[in-house]
């Protein structure tokens, strides 16, 4: 018995238009950051401007969606994915603002990841028919009407945002080391030490929010289902992601690990995170398969 909310034609128009324009702006921001990275330094401020604009458009889209669905836009892959991309860009813009223009290069790695996530929401379902990303406006079933859900989802998008940023820095580190100082591209990237620091900060940020997500999820499960932990695949994969980042954070500080080994751990952690989001929904089953 699927039920959908009737959305006015203009509401629908604005929602779709704002989404499409925001996506276009994200792609333009990505291209500008890449041009900046490949030697045209003057594109940096422009790229940064376009990204902020794209972020505002995306914010407007999320607000429109909220109005259209008459509730928090927290449910299903489409809404969650959008929030998560939004949070990722927000955290990046914040670090760029704090750390200034030296860090434009990070944008050239972060924006492609954002575009990749958008691709999952838009292009992938067209190729794989088994992947359905519904954009329908469905109301919130009673079990999801809980304040813990709001905390749970808000924390998770910021956790995922931190891990995405950490992954971007890990990719940069790998490129820089692989290409050597001769390459002008490698020289355009921050020093490996700085990248490792960035990776650490982003991971720690993500880790804090991932922890809040797991805890609030457990409390919510307890009030709805009568148990904290059901060992279902979504819960387990978020725990696996958390374990991997815990190992990374410990190895870095107490064992003094640096370089390739920590970069590998962060990459594995990111893969686990993406699997928690995407893989669990399409490859494994559980009660979380709604989102």
């Amino acid at each position, binding site marked *: *018995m*699927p*039920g959908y*909310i009737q959305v006015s034609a203009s509401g629908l128009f604005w929602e779709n238009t704002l989404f499409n324009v925001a996506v276009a702006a994200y792609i333009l921001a990505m291209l500008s950051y890449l041009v900046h990275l490949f030697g045209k330094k003057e594109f940096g401020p422009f790229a940064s401007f376009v990204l902020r604009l794209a972020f505002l458009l995306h914010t407007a889209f999320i607000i429109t969606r909220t109005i259209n669905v008459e509730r928090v836009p927290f449910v299903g892959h489409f809404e969650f994915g959008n929030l998560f991309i939004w949070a990722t860009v927000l955290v990046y813009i914040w670090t760029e603002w704090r750390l200034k223009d030296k860090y434009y290069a990070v944008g050239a790695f972060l924006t492609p990841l954002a575009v990749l996530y958008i691709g999952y929401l838009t292009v992938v379902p067209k190729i794989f028919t088994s992947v359905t990303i519904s954009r329908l406006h469905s*109301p919130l*079933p*009673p*079990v999801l*009407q*809980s304040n813990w859900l709001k905390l749970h989802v808000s924390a998770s998008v910021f956790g995922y945002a931190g891990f995405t940023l950490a992954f971007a820095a890990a990719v940069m580190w790998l490129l820089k080391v692989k290409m050597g100082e001769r390459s002008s591209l490698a020289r355009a990237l921050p020093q490996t030490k*700085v990248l490792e*620091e960035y990776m650490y900060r982003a991971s*720690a*940020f993500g*880790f*804090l929010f991932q*922890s*809040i997500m797991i*805890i609030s999820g*457990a*409390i919510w499960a*307890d*009030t*709805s*289902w*009568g*148990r*904290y*932990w059901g*060992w*279902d*695949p979504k819960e*387990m*994969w978020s*725990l*696996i992601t958390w*374990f*991997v980042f*815990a*190992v990374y954070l*410990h*190895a870095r*500080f*107490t*064992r*003094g690990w640096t370089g390739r080994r920590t970069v590998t751990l962060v990459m594995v952690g990111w893969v686990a995170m993406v699997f928690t989001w995407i893989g*669990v929904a399409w490859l*494994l*089953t*559980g009660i979380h398969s709604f989102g």
Partner: protein
Amino acid sequence: MSKGTSGLSKSQAQAESPVKQILNFLSSMQLGLILLLLLAITSVFATLRDNEAAITTIYRSWWFIGMMAFTALNLLLCTARRIGPMSRLALHPQRVVSSDAIGKMSVKRALKMNSEDIALDAARSAFHATGLTVTEEDGAEGRVVFAQRGKFGYFGSLITHISLLLILLGAMYGSLTGFEDRNGGIVGDHIDVEKGELHIDILDVRMEQEEDPTIRPRVFTEMIVKKDGREIAHGTVSINQPLRFAGNTIYHMTFRYVSDVRVKNLTTGEEEMVQLLDVDQLQLDADGTTVHIMQFFPNFSMHADGMPYSKNYKPERPVLAGILVEGGRAVRNVFLQLDTPVVIETANGEMELELTTFQNAAVFSITRNMGRPILVVGAVLLILGLYLSFFLFPRRFWAVYDKKIATLLIGGRSYRNRLGLEQDMERIESEISSREGE
């Protein structure tokens, strides 16, 4: 990381007795990391299996629980070992250092200045301007200005680890002393929950439609809970709103429709009322003529192919659907509409079935979890510990004036944030030089 915080150094460890060595190994970070990785890898494989199977064969297996117990032991030992040294490091810093010691610090500056008073004064106010707490003491070589910030950051990892222990402990205690049960009923039912020696009286079961009738409605159950004949709780249970009392919780799980059906033998005129739920079977004669109840549809409709469905949860056209089975074979569908009798031929003669009313039964899960308060404390401490670990970074600075070379020496140490320490040092340096420029 500064030296001397991780407990024993290598050379000390070699001289230890075997027992000490085993303890060292059990409390070591290496073991911790290996265990965490093992838990992660095992979990990956476990999620590839069917969930129920994974729970029984992996998550509840002795070796998985053993791994968790080892992790807990490792955490416990490592925390116990570090609590003393860590508190000393955090709360009793060495306030006086020599100029040699500053020379060995990872982040340091040597600034030419002519007067000791002016130099130390400059250091003091630069420290203040950087948000540090400043104290001073006389040492063998003269006055030492000491400044620090974020000392509670030292406790971050300890608190995080203690919180994890509490969470594990709470979960263990909860599952050892608690129980889990399922039960349900309609208005007026009295339920005995044997495991908890509880008795539930259902006073009311009320369904509230959502604005959108295709969404599963909410069901509110008012109940009184008694133990040893005494009332211990009274309240209403619905989705996301459990009733909690003394470590017990009653959660709404789902609801069912219960149909009241009048069964009348038209030949004899005998009549009885029966209550039917999904999957119940209503036997009509000794030959095995039976109605297998399939489902209750609050708003009955049929697809083009004859498949029945409910348009939504509005009780506009309630129908109880079943299958008539004779001699073990399904003969036809039986649809009982409200107040509309249906006649069925049986060996006992014609039987008339009529759906007269229907009501809701609520199904709950009843649990006892005495570990909940421990879990809550653990959860709060976990977040606090992570915050202290990652967002308060402890840093310390020392300033001394070396008269021989007329130089102000400043050294800094941090606890796991070299870059932040360097940034602070840059700020201190620029504060001092801007003062000099005045």
